[in-house]
């Protein structure tokens, strides 16, 4: 399940979507909007994407995760448009029979999503300025 949407992320629906009688483990990752980044106060974030390519890359990520780990179900949801403080901008959920693959696949999916999927974040700082985020280094700890 791949979704790019302006709607708030519905975690109950995502957890229900990955549930399965064969699953012994579900791992859900939520990326949420921090109020303070590098000492500056954020008012909100705004996400945009290259829709056709973002959906294609997300589907490729899911397919690769399914090849690498014995996962049962997978859901990746990314929010577009304005996201307020404390709200989730991204959700990754994975179910598997045992817990180790669910943790590994979940972490790999969010790590790789942040590196390759054409989605961009615009910071709306509390001081009224705005700024597109285009990281210089490939590695990100956010």
């Amino acid at each position, binding site marked *: 399940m791949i979704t790019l949407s302006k709607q708030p992320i519905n975690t109950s629906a995502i957890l229900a979507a990955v549930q399965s009688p064969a699953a012994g483990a579900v791992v859900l990752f939520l990326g949420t909007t921090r109020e303070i980044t590098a000492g500056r106060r954020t008012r909100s974030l705004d996400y945009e994407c290259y829709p056709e390519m973002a959906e294609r890359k997300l589907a490729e990520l899911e397919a690769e995760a399914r090849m690498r780990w014995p996962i049962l179900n997978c859901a990746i949801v990314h929010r577009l448009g304005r996201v307020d403080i404390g709200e989730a901008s991204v959700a990754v959920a994975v179910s598997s029979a045992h817990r180790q693959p669910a943790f590994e696949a979940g972490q790999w999916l969010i790590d790789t999503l942040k590196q390759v999927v054409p989605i961009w974040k615009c910071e709306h700082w509390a001081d009224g300025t705005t700024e597109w985020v*285009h990281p210089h280094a490939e590695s990100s700890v956010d």
Partner: protein
Amino acid sequence: MQIRVKLFAAARDLAGSESIEIELPDEATVAHLREALMERLPPARGLLARSMFAIDCDYAANDTRLSANVEVACIPPVSGG
């Protein structure tokens, strides 16, 4: 050939447009496109230098040849998540 390049995020804001038309020789590669874009959009030089390009929704290497009937997009460093 005429290549229409989709622009996103800061690249779009710096260009003031969601896409830009670039005239390139028929043998042109992604590297040539990058140079031509840098000339057309001097304020975006730094960003273009570290941007990727996509052809038909797949990342393309610098030496990939362009053709007129593909969809080309400039992909500045991504920040989803």
